[in-house]
């Protein structure tokens, strides 16, 4: 069992401010059943523009519930401007800390708060919208969100980023991209953690190239497909042409806008050589991949 602080346990077993305020001034929703946690936050202001009441409903683990409960307590009495400054750190600190792997719960709290404040200010959408490029397809995490948790929490490893916003915690296919974001923001502070990633070599012999292609498929591509019930097999390599076959189904794959061939090609170009061309083996190319949202 996790090492939760007494305060986390106390708020989990006796959550404060459960429910939904009718006709709230602000309402924010984040997460989904599929992701494993979700939070709906509502607040109401008094005449002086201070938060008079805040309520929550949460689906998730003990720390998700405790985080939500404590957030509603913190918010009461704050002005909207003050509330907008609350960071995920503040929420975690208020609880006396959270286990590292659970820090994403505090980020979820801050995201719901932001969505609720935006809803109050603009009357706009209550749901947090994905702005900019989506890096982690499994959990729908954008580049902007990843940058933010890195900055606000001074993160230096992919593992930490996963702990704080879940990005990279599904199939793991986006870990390379997360690492690049960390390097860009943190520079020298970035720790060497992604040692498993194959590095693009200079001139490769044929055997080295084939091995690197196989390794890239094994480590960078197959886990993503497997997570969604599919699989890939390397059939042959001729010069820069890699012949692959897809197996199984990609039923829960969310990469609707790409074909699998493009995804594989992009990865191989990134890790092996810019010249790589991917071709699907005749038979497997005939079977359409059913991508579903």
């Amino acid at each position, binding site marked *: *069992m*996790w090492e939760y602080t007494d305060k986390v*346990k106390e708020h*989990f*077993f006796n*959550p404060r401010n*459960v429910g939904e305020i009718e006709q709230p001034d602000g309402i924010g*929703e984040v997460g989904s*059943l*599929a992701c*494993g*946690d*979700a*939070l*709906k936050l509502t607040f109401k202001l008094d005449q002086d523009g201070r938060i008079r009441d805040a309520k929550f*409903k*949460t*689906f*998730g*683990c*003990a720390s*998700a*519930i405790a985080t939500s409960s404590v957030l509603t307590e913190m918010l009461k009495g704050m002005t909207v401007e003050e509330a907008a400054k609350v960071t995920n750190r503040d929420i975690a600190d208020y609880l006396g800390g959270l286990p590292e*792997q*659970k820090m994403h719960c505090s980020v979820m709290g801050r995201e719901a708060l932001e969505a609720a404040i935006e809803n109050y200010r603009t009357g706009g959408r209550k749901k947090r919208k994905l702005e900019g490029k989506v890096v982690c397809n*499994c*959990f729908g995490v954008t580049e902007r969100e990843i940058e933010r948790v890195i900055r606000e929490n001074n993160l230096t490893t992919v593992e930490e980023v*996963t702990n704080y916003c*879940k990005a990279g*915690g*599904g199939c793991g296919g986006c870990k390379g991209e997360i690492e690049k974001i960390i390097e860009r923001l943190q520079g020298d502070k970035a720790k060497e953690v992604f040692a498993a990633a194959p590095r693009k070599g200079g001139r490769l012999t044929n055997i080295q190239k084939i091995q690197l292609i196989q*390794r890239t498929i*094994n480590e960078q591509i*197959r886990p993503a497909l*497997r*997570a969604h*019930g599919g*699989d890939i*097999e390397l059939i042959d390599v001729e010069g820069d042409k890699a012949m692959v076959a897809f197996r*199984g189904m990609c039923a829960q794959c969310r990469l609707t806008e790409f074909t699998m061939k493009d995804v594989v090609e992009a990865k191989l170009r990134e890790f092996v050589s810019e010249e790589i061309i991917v071709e699907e083996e005749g038979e497997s190319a005939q079977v359409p991949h059913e991508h579903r949202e």
Partner: protein
Amino acid sequence: MAEEVLQEMKPLFCELYGNPSSMHTFGGQIGRRIHKAREQVAALIGCGPSEIIFTSCGTESDNTAIKGALAAYPNKRKIITTRVEHPAVLAVCREQENHGYTVVELGVDDKGRLDLAQLEKEVDDDTALVTIMYANNETGVVFPIDKIAELVIGRGVVFHTDAVQAVGKIALDLSNSNIDLLSISGHKLHGPKGVGVLYVRKGTRLAPFMLGGHQEAGRRAGTENVPGIVGLGKACELAAENIVQENERVGSLRDKLESAILQKCPDSRLNGDKENRLPNTTNISFEYIEGEAILLMLDKFGICASSGSACTSGSLEPSHVLRAMGVPFTAAHGSIRFSLSRYNSEEEVDYTIEKMPEIVNKLRKLSPFVAK
């Protein structure tokens, strides 16, 4: 662990501390104890004592079986397994992909059952090893292992089964079976932790995994965990005595717990094939709430269970077994497994039945997905 097992182990920490490999009297006494344990294990699963190798755990048994079988047939490059295996098998198989092996992972249907026709189709001349678990550790679903063994063994393939969950709960008779390799773990049958068994059918080619000693007839080097081995032997003896009782009494307690929870908690569902299941396991999903939260509430009432939810495992994705069965994410996150044993009483079952709806209701009140 069973009290009888502890009593059996106690003297081996002090008075009987000899090394079975030594020539002196102390060593000889110990050698006889290990021999007895070997016979006790063999009696439980219906094999010869010489077919038993003691290891340090079920995971070591699985590693030894898979890597040893592959090494014994270096010209074959294909492994067949299932998507619902324990990581001790699945991770080892997948690792072999980096060494040029093709790994075929058979899927299961919504009840967690295998398609034997698909297995038959996949076995070919290049197949070195088929490794399929006896009973699933999360759902308790039992695969028709004897049928599978018969199917693959005629094709010149080594067949391994991870029977960690099954041994002691299902009566096995390996003298009448085509299983080549079978893994057992001590603590799953009220024996000590840190000891396991690999059954190796006489005549099965297997390259040793641990080198550097003559122990276990050279098939597993390393000084024996004597108290563990002796304890496991006793545990096997007790399991053989209790197996009918476990099937009947534990099975009926489990059925009572399961049907009461499913009936009292709306939007709950059973995961796994009800017909072919271990008598002691039940895996139930509760919609709209999350497994770890349920576990903590149960824990507060002194009830211990486990969950296939993402949060409990430290990963962010829910159980690979439930996902392979096509259990929707919504239900997989709220899954709970109860495992009963001969040490559980009817009062404990009744207490759990009483508390469960309370917990589910409390968490559903918090859930944004439940209308008021």
